[in-house]
């Protein structure tokens, strides 16, 4: 390592800068290298050297200078951009992506970004977008070539690809009342997974026949959300006490509603073979859910993840939709939709006609008999809790 006085080092750097400005980058590089070789270069001098080497066309030495610079200061946005350039030019887009993304992230939180750097950041933004698109194409092509074509993938593997490429994001259970741990985070379950599903679907016509007169009379329906004077007021997006979203109950507060059951014997009987969740006064809830034209149920999360919610679509005009987590499905008359309502979900009827589905809740198949008993006991205890003498 050469000994170099401060004065000499400063003189060499000035001379190097002059050479660079006068269009002699190779001379600048040779001079600046004297300082870096002495072990006395700071971040600015390394950066000058990297620029000189880039202009001189010496990619290999430029990258070495950048590596040295980044070892000194890993957060240098300029050096990260230049290092990314070198990797991209060397046919290493994954490494380039790493450096560019780091540069972008640091610039996003920087107090000030100089104009010339802003131009560089715009350039890498475009490169990242093109590269991501190329990456998706590449991935699709390669997967197909390896026998994993789009149609043959398991839905959750397809979803993993969408999450990987940033098209979707994962959603998790967020029940408002009660969280049961360690369960699969699944938005939709498939009707084929439930032994009882086919027989119930076969009853769709009969159930719809029982529904029609109830709709005509309207009397049995009431707003799905009703206010409780014994609780502080809250209004869920204006839907409380609003008939836009109404329901008629066959089971409510965990018990059959005799007068409605009497009018819907086939519907009630159709549910005999279904493993309805029995949880004190909380479940089962079985109802016809009526969504008026134009009504929207904004995104929300259900109360507990120990059950799944089932929809048997009965009257479904075109223009209705239903989202759970990152997946949108449409109701089809007579085909069950089964989902985890503790994952954020929303529904809409953008048609000009009514939409009606039969809604009921079943135990999650992952819960053992003992666990179901445990959950039921817990909620009986919760709802049986009145005044234990704590009131002062």
């Amino acid at each position, binding site marked *: 390592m050469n000994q170099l006085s401060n004065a000499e080092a400063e003189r060499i750097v000035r001379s190097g800068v002059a050479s660079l400005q006068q269009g002699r980058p190779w001379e600048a590089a040779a001079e600046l290298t004297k300082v870096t070789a002495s072990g006395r270069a700071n971040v600015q001098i390394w950066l000058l050297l990297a620029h000189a080497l880039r202009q001189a066309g010496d990619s290999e030495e430029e990258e070495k200078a950048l590596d040295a610079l980044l070892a000194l200061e890993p957060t240098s946005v300029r050096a990260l951009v230049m290092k990314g350039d070198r990797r991209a030019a060397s046919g290493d887009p994954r490494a380039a992506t790493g450096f560019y993304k780091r540069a972008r992230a640091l610039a996003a939180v920087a107090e000030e970004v100089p104009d010339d750097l802003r131009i560089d950041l715009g350039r890498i933004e475009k490169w990242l977008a093109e590269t991501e698109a190329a990456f998706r194409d590449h991935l699709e092509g390669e997967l197909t070539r390896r*026998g994993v074509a789009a149609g043959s993938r398991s839905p959750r593997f397809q979803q993993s690809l969408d999450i990987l490429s940033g098209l979707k994001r994962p959603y998790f259970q967020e029940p408002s009342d009660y969280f049961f741990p360690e369960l699969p985070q699944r938005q939709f379950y498939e009707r084929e997974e439930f032994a009882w599903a086919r027989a119930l679907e076969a009853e769709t016509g009969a159930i719809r026949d029982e529904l029609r007169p109830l709709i005509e009379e309207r009397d049995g329906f009431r707003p799905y959300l009703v206010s409780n004077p014994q609780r502080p007021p809250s209004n869920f997006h204006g839907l409380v006490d609003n008939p836009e979203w109404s329901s008629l109950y066959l089971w409510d507060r965990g018990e059959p509603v005799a007068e409605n059951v009497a009018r819907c014997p086939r519907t009630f009987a159709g549910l005999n073979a279904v493993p309805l969740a029995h949880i004190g006064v909380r479940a089962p809830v079985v109802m016809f859910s009526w969504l008026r034209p134009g009504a929207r149920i904004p995104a929300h999360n259900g109360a507990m993840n120990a059950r799944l919610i089932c929809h048997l679509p009965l009257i479904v005009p075109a223009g209705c939709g239903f989202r759970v987590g990152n997946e949108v499905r449409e109701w089809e008359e007579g085909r069950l939709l089964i989902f985890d309502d503790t994952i954020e979900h929303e529904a809409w009827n953008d048609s000009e006609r009514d939409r009606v589905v039969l809604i009921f809740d079943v135990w999650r198949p992952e819960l053992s008999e003992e666990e179901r008993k445990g959950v039921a006991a817990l909620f009986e205890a919760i709802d049986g809790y009145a005044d234990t003498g704590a009131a002062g």
Partner: protein
Amino acid sequence: MTRPREDELRGLLARGRAYAEAGDARAAASFFAAALRSAGQAVPAPLAAEVQEARAYLERTKQAYAAHLERAIAAADAGPRMDEAFDIMLGRRGVEPRRVPYPQRPSAFYFPGLPQRPFYEREAFPWAARVEAASAAIRAEAQALLDRGESFAPYVQAEKNRPQRDFHGMQDDPSWGAFYLWKDGERIAENAARCPATMAALEGVPLTQIPGRTPSVLFSLLRPGAHIPPHHGMLNCRLICHLPLIVPPGCWLRVGGETRQWEDGKLLIFDDSIEHEAKNGSERLRLVLLFDIWRPELSEAERAAVAAMFTAIDAFAAPAAAQRDA
């Protein structure tokens, strides 16, 4: 606080008190809780005493409620998941009670729809007993490496041509050392040859096979006092297995909300995409055999698809470079 908000607070407190006197603790608690939310940090002086009473009422109610539920649940005896659910509900796990307490956050690839389980139990894996039965022979091979002063390279090493991202100061730190039999999907022939009993014990184990990435099989050494800070692994489509070989007292592994201790010869199997950390709080070294297996929930087709995907990712080369002067 503006006048209308003070009036609102006064109203909520009054209704809470009315329900408390009428013996409806649930209604009272809901109004008192709403009052506390309404008051926030800025409690108006004239209402300070009432707000304090509301807070005390809620605390008493919460305790009575927990005791009441405790009695009901004890009778049900529904197993560990139920106990965990109950603890979460009462806020005993120190986390937001209505979310996945420690969700999977793999740094490289997320496979959706899987259970969020920190630990899996060894009894559920048919190959586990055979590996455990080989503990003594595996330990002897590891001990021979230690006795010969074999170098255990730092587990966390700087990756060439990636932005520097020091892993909480563990980079190049010899207090977490590794001796690899497989590394990033490749068998290290020289090292494997020195540990034949270990290699034999792993036959039949469903090691994660992703070319260029997994499996890694290594003796993982944690020196006295070493602490691996909380972090997330890269993938959630595998599980990490530890076969504990040398475990002094005072060592622990936390995964999500659960902390376990290594026990000689008993496998610990966990999801490393859930936040986890480890510590050797003893004055001796800790050694485990570490390897990764496919998650049992993934079908054969899904395993093949994940492997094909990573092969495709690693084969991704440059698109036309859109550069200024490259």
